[in-house]
C-alpha cells in the first residue's frame, strides 16, 4: 500500500460527495413543495412569499443555487432549516453523534456475536450448531426492523419489563441510563447484520479451511486450536472488514426505522421528519452527511484491509 493508493481513495471520497450532492440537490429541486411556503406556512401572503423567495435565491438559475449551496457546504454552512428556522449544521451534527453512538454499539455488538457464530457454524459444519446458526440467520434476514422492533418492545419492555421501551438519554449525561435505553435499538438494528455477517464469516472460514495452507498446517501436526485461530481466522476475517464496511450503508438505513420507533433523536429521525416536512436544506445536508459517513467508513476499511492484507500490491 502506498501513499498514492491512499491519495486515490481520498480523491474517490470527493468524487462520491460531488455525485451525491448533485443527485440530492436535483432530487430536492424537483420535490413537490415550495420552500418559501414551507417556511412561512399556509398563512403567508403572496408578497411575503415572493420576498422570501428572492431572499433565499429561489428565483436564481438552478446551477447558481447549487453553487451557492455547495459553496456554503464547503464552508460548513448547510443553510437554515425551513421547519425550525435554525441553522441545519449544528443540529444535524449532534444528531449524527447520536446515530454514530447507536451504530458503533450496534457494530461492536454485531461483531461480538456474528464472528463467534460464524466460527462455530464453520467448525461444526453440518452439525446441530451449524444448522441453528443458519436457522437464526434465515429468520434474521427475513423480518423487517420495524417488526423486530415492535416485537422487542412488546416482549422485553411491555411484558417482561426488563428495559425501558423507548427514549434516549445522552451517555455523557447518564451513562448507565443511556446504555439501558440503547440496548433494544442496538439489538434490533444489528439482527440483520448479525445474520449476514455470521453467514459471511462461516462461508469464508469454510473456504479458508479447505485451502492448501490449512491442510499444510494440519499436516505439520499443529494443534487444531492453532490451525483455526492462527492460520484460519486471520484469513477468513480479512474479507469481513470490507463486508462490514459495506453493511454500514445498510446500518445507516436501518437507523432511520429504529430511531423512529425508539424515539432516538439521530440523523435518521432528522431525515425522516425532514422528508415528511419537505425541509429541503435538512434533507440535503442529512443525505450528504450519511454519504460522507459511509464513504469515510469504507475508506478506513479499504485502507485497513490493504494494510493488513500484505498480499495485495496497491499502486
Amino acid at each position, binding site marked *: 500500500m502506498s501513499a498514492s493508493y491512499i491519495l486515490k481513495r481520498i480523491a*474517490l471520497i470527493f*468524487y*462520491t*460527495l*460531488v*455525485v*451525491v450532492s448533485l*443527485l*440530492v440537490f436535483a*432530487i430536492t429541486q*424537483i*420535490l*413537490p413543495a415550495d420552500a418559501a411556503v414551507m417556511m412561512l406556512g399556509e398563512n403567508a401572503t403572496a408578497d411575503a412569499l415572493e420576498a422570501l423567495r428572492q431572499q433565499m435565491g429561489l428565483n436564481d438559475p438552478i446551477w447558481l443555487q447549487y453553487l451557492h449551496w455547495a459553496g456554503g457546504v464547503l464552508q460548513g454552512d448547510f443553510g437554515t432549516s425551513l421547519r425550525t428556522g435554525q441553522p441545519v449544521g449544528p443540529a444535524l451534527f449532534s444528531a449524527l453523534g447520536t446515530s454514530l453512538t447507536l451504530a458503533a454499539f450496534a457494530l461492536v455488538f454485531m461483531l461480538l456475536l456474528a464472528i463467534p457464530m460464524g466460527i462455530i457454524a464453520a467448525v461444526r459444519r453440518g452439525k446441530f450448531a451449524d444448522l441453528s446458526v443458519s436457522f437464526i440467520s*434465515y*429468520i434474521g*434476514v*427475513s*423480518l*423487517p*426492523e*420495524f*417488526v423486530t422492533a*415492535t416485537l422487542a418492545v*412488546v416482549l422485553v419492555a*411491555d411484558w417482561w419489563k426488563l428495559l425501558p421501551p423507548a427514549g434516549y438519554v445522552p451517555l455523557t449525561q447518564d451513562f448507565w441510563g443511556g446504555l439501558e435505553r440503547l440496548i433494544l435499538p442496538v439489538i434490533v438494528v444489528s439482527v440483520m447484520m448479525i445474520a449476514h455477517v455470521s453467514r459471511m464469516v462461516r462461508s469464508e472460514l469454510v473456504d479458508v479451511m479447505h485451502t492448501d495452507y490449512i491442510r499444510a498446517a494440519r499436516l505439520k501436526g499443529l494443534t487444531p486450536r492453532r490451525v483455526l485461530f492462527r492460520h484460519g481466522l486471520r484469513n477468513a476475517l480479512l474479507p469481513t472488514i470490507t463486508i462490514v464496511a459495506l453493511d454500514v*450503508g*445498510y446500518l*445507516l*438505513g*436501518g437507523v*432511520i*426505522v429504529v430511531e*423512529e420507533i425508539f424515539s432516538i433523536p439521530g440523523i435518521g429521525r432528522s*431525515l*425522516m421528519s425532514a*422528508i*415528511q416536512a*419537505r425541509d429541503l436544506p435538512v*434533507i440535503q445536508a442529512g*443525505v450528504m452527511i*450519511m*454519504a*460522507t459517513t*459511509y*464513504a469515510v467508513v*469504507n475508506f478506513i476499511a479499504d485502507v485497513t484491509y490493504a494494510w493488513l492484507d500484505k498480499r495485495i500490491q496497491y499502486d
Partner: protein
Amino acid sequence: MTDFLRRLFRTPQGLLGCLIVGLILLAVVAGSWVTPYGPNDMQALARYKAPSAAHWLGTDQYGRDILSRLLDGARSTVVMAVLATFIGTLGGAILGTGSAYLGGRADEFIMRTVDAVMAIPSLLLALLVVSLLGSNSANALLAIAIAFVPSMARISRSVALTVRKQDYVSAAVARGEGAAYIVLREMLPNVIAPIVVEMTIRVSFAVMLFATLSFLGLGAQPPASDWGLMVSEARQFLHRSYWILLWPSAAIALTAIGFNLLGDGLRDALNPRT
C-alpha cells in the same frame, strides 16, 4: 431441465425454498379466486375478531377478513417485489455488463459513479425517490428498483468481467465473432446464472424494503392489502388483537425466507461444474 430440478431438490435449501415460493406463487395466482370475503369488505359488527371458523385468521379493525386480505395482498406484495427486483436487476445488469464490456475510462467512470451512489443507503435512496414521485405502490416499486441498480451493477460487472476473461470468449474474439454474438451467445448465458441467484435472494430484501417504506408512510397506501402496510397499520392494534399484526408479519417472513432459501438452492444447482 429435469436434471436441473433434480439438483435443485437435492439440497435442503432448494427443496424447502421451492416449496415455500411455490406456495406463495399459488397464493399470488389463485389467491383472489379463493378468498372467502372481499379484501375490502367491512363488517361493522365483526371487528377485531379472533381467528374462528368464519374468519380463519380473524378480522381487522374494519372487520375485514384477514385471510382474504392476505391472499389478495400476495399478488401486489410478491409481484411488486419480484417486479422491482427484476427491473432493478435488469437496469443493474445492463449498466454493469455494459461497463465491463466498454472497459477503460468509461468503465472507470460508470463504476466510480455507481460506487458514489451506493454511499446513499438504499432505504434512504428509496425514500428520496418515493417522496420525489409521491407515495404509492407504483412509485415504491420504481424506488426500490432504482435503489437496487447500483449494487446489481457492481455484481453483474464483476461476473461479466470474470466471464470476459474466460478463454471461450477469447476464442470467440480471436475467430472474429461480432460483438453482439459474443455478448449474447457467449457471455450472457454464463452471466445470467449468478445474477438470477442474486436476484432471487434480493426479492426477499425487496419485500422487506416495501414493508419498511409502507411503515414509514411512503409505500402502499390504505386501503391496499400490501402485507407491509397491513403490518404497519396493525401496530397500533397490537395490544388489542395481536393477530392483525401476526399474520402479515409471518407472511412477509415466510416469503423472505422462501426466496432466500431458493436463492441459496439455485446457487448450488446452477453451478454447471458440480
